[in-house]
């Protein structure tokens, strides 16, 4: 028996919060990635895009509030689910056999923690601009800032690894959203798993293309 079953959120309730907040975040990374690809169009395009975002503080802060709330809800339910599930297993069997659970499904808490660490670093790096930029001031010159940031192989490497983990996280997460909202069956499961994996790779490769292009000297 749970010590506090009366005020504990229901299991499926937590899953629905996790699915919906995850859906918001998954939608955001697509928008973010699409915007980032303007790096390939040249400094004017991406700098104008950044200036346009900052010229609309209402929209920018509206999006930020939704994202912050979704992130908090996603982490909160993720921590609760992980702790409760560990307790419910009672240590598990001495011999552990896995028939079907995918690598991505079994590593969700771990990929999630790395992505959170990445998120903190990324915000300090390009939003607050306090780390890994050598104290330089870039102002509105986002293009120059990104090139300077990714010219350091260790920083670019961390971004690339984090995006591969994001791909792993999305490939289980997106398919799970449909299951949790009751919009999946045996006929659609395989297709939705494929859509989720494709979406994960689309996001990851889109993001990775930029640090990789900087490292290879395609973007200067």
């Amino acid at each position, binding site marked *: 028996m749970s010590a506090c079953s009366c005020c504990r959120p229901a299991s499926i309730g937590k*899953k629905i919060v996790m699915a919906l907040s995850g859906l918001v975040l998954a939608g955001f990374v697509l928008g973010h990635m699409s915007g980032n690809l303007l790096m390939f169009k040249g400094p004017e395009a991406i700098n104008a895009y950044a200036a346009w975002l900052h010229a609309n503080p209402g929209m920018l802060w509206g999006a930020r509030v939704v994202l912050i709330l979704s992130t908090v809800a996603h982490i909160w339910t993720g921590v609760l689910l992980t702790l409760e599930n560990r307790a419910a*297993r009672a240590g598990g069997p001495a011999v552990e*056999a896995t028939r079907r659970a995918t690598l991505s499904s079994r590593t969700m808490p771990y990929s999630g923690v790395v992505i959170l660490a990445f998120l903190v670093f990324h915000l300090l790096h390009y939003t607050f601009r306090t780390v890994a930029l050598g104290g330089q001031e870039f102002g509105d010159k986002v293009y120059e800032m990104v090139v300077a940031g990714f010219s350091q192989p260790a920083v670019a490497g961390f971004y690339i690894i984090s995006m591969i983990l994001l791909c792993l996280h999305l490939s289980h997460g997106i398919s799970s959203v449909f299951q*949790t909202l*009751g919009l999946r069956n045996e006929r659609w499961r395989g297709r939705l798993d494929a859509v989720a994996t494709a979406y994960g790779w689309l996001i990851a490769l889109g993001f990775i293309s930029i640090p990789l292009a900087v490292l290879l000297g395609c973007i200067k």
Partner: protein
Amino acid sequence: MVKEHDNLDSHGEQTLSLRLRVWRQSRGAAGHFEDHALAAVPTSASFLEMMDMLNEQLIKEGKDTFAFDHDCREGICGMCSMTINGMPHGPLPGVTTCQLHMRNFRDGEMITVEPWRAKAFPVIKDLAVNRSAFDKVIQAGGFITVRTGSATEANNTLIPKSVADEAMDAAECIGCGACVASCKNGSAMLFVGAKINHLNILPQGQPERERRTLAMVKTMDDAGFGNCTNYGECQAHCPKSITLDVIAKLNRDYLRARVKEFFSSTGKPRKGGD
């Protein structure tokens, strides 16, 4: 699998020599594995018959036998519950432990046998666990209300064949608990989903539909089962091959019940309103 040159018994049947690591636990005490050797196990024996042979050997040696649950031994009661080499009901998909035969093992193989592991299923003794948490879930909503005494004409309630089939597929669940034991979260969602699917899609299940869904999920949560994170291990280990569809349907019905409850009418005007 059995090799060509394996031992034969007096009936010419192949036999196996096995090394067994079996869980030993008394009520309230910490458990441990015990190692035993068992020879001349016919390949046609079921896994439970092999366990019977081990217990007979232990009785002859003047030792305590292993307690394990079993009843019908024909794969329909859901009593047998053993995790064999990490797999609930053993290595053969779609069967219960009693329907698992020793021809699925190799001569000289080491077999690890342990109870269902879950907080909601405490060990009673050795391999026997207390599954009354499932009974509590059934008591909370696994029923329909009908007038008893005089059966109505069956064809008064028409049920499309596809709906009857779907309900029947869900009703195949024998409540053995392998879904909980195989789940890396100790979640009972496949079991509860099967019961919800069985009753919620039939006309007879409609009057209690929302109440049933909310009550069964609450009882499941209170019993200490984990939360589903869509591993799919339960479907892969279910002896009745119940699919994750029942969990999707449970999620959908839960959401529906919550929305209906939230917007339910009290039938009275708001206090202080007009």
